[in-house]
């Protein structure tokens, strides 16, 4: 009896570790970042339009960084959502078994390509291509980053959406066909609505992936910390800022603290996305298993 109890405690300890790490992250971010706000107004920090952390006097306005992140993320979603969901539907509903067995692993491979490789590809192939195509001063723009990020987020969205779509019971499909619906009507009216919450989860998680993405934006987005006006200008995202500048800061300096403060903002954003996604997928599970 006591042995069983001991075993249970043992496992509980490990289960608590992830909370412990999460708490640790929060603690570290706040410990290092919060003291910035003793010297910089939080409003100025969030909505300040200038980011000159190393100038004297330094400016710690991260609005350009936030907007940069959001712009790139939004662009990425525009690319990834239709393609991702379209692919998911295609793979699970239309593709013949042979073709599906090829395409599905390919999409999963796409998800496995490291982000730095995307960044690299963006830098050496895609950016020059865009530069030439639109005749821009530089190929490293928000647009470039969006496309690359979109392709990166695509498999995330596609695979979660595909799971959701293929977990729609076959019986729904059969029911629809037996009522005289065409395949397309079945997809549009039954399958997609049934999988909607799963698809929403996919989109939000894709969004989380895009906004938290570091290397690609760091390498491809260009990196100028100014408020973007068009898609075709370089931007700098929050993640990229942290990655690029952390190496050059003095520990404990205001610059150092401000990078942690950015991390706090970033963390909060992704936390929100995750909680929303979690909530929706919880509901989705209930819906699919509800009733019988």
């Amino acid at each position: 009896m006591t042995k069983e109890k001991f075993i249970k405690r043992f496992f509980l300890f490990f289960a608590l570790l992830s909370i412990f790490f999460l708490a640790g992250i929060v603690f570290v971010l706040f410990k290092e970042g919060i003291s910035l706000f003793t010297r910089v107004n939080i409003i100025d920090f969030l909505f300040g339009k200038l980011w000159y952390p190393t100038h004297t006097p330094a400016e710690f306005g991260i609005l350009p960084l936030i907007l940069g992140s959001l712009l790139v993320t939004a662009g990425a979603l525009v690319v990834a959502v239709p393609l991702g969901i379209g692919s998911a539907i295609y793979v699970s509903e239309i593709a013949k078994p042979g073709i599906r067995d090829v395409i599905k692993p390919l999409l999963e491979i796409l998800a496995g390509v490291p982000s730095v490789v995307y960044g690299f590809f963006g830098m050496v192939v895609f950016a020059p291509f865009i530069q030439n195509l639109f005749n821009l001063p530089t190929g490293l723009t928000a647009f470039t980053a969006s496309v690359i990020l979109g392709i990166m987020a695509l498999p995330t969205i596609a695979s979660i959406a595909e799971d959701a779509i293929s977990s729609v019971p076959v019986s729904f499909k059969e029911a629809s066909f037996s009522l005289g619906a065409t395949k397309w009507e079945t997809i549009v009216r039954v399958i997609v609505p049934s999988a909607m919450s799963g698809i929403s989860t996919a989109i939000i998680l894709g969004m989380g992936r895009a906004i938290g993405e570091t290397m690609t934006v760091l390498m491809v987005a260009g990196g100028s910390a100014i408020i973007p006006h068009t898609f075709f200008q370089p931007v700098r995202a929050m993640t990229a800022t942290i990655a690029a500048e952390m190496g050059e800061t003095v520990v404990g300096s205001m610059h150092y603290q401000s990078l942690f403060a950015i991390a706090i903002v970033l963390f909060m954003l992704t936390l929100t996305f995750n909680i929303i996604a979690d909530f929706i997928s919880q509901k989705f599970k209930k819906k699919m298993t509800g009733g019988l």
Partner: protein
Amino acid sequence: MVKRDKVVTKYLNLWFGDNHVLKDVDIGIEENKVTAVIGPSGCGKSTFLRCLNRMNDLIDTTRITGKVLFDGKDVYNNRMDVVDLRRRVGMVFQKPNPFPKSVFENVAYGLRIQGIRNRIPEKVEKALRSAVLWDEVKDRLNISALSLSGGQQQRLCIARALACEPEVILMDEPCSALDPTATAKIEELLFTLKERYTICIVTHNMQQAARVSDYAAFLLLGELVEFNDTNKIFTNPKDKRTEDYITGRFG
């Protein structure tokens, strides 16, 4: 009254790949009667049923010879419009499978895909009444169909099929996921439905076939062993194999 067969199969043969699943099945399904198909597991009951509205088309390896005549027209003819056929031959499945939509939308589904716009609520009500479900759901047509009980869900599926005004209703073990009380309700429903529809039901449950059907067909390894009045089948089957199956001496 002259016996009139709504659906007739002639020398129906079906293969899944190399698996010869139906062998020269000749059956006439009479109008306004309940015809039951019984037989041991895997004998091809479901497959037979799904031939009648071409649901087997969805399986790639299917190969069919022989004829299925619906009102005298060959179902497997190239000119047959499958989508329309399926509308006229409704189907109810083993496990109740309402869409995760409201009760109302479930029944309206078939109407909407046909592009019907007018008098939908009326038609939905009529279908629900025919399925003896109206009284139980009339005050909550907007709740999710999944929150109904199993038996109610199955009647909803029947209502959904009825809304399309089919002529024939195919049922593939419609009660096997239900408890006896819900099963009894569905069985009672069959007696009223057959006044207006032609029904073909596949069932594992011999007793159910005995209770609800007018004609019974016994399939064995894809072969039609006996097809006769349900009375005859259950009191005096002609074939030894039917007798053995009916009396539980089989296998």
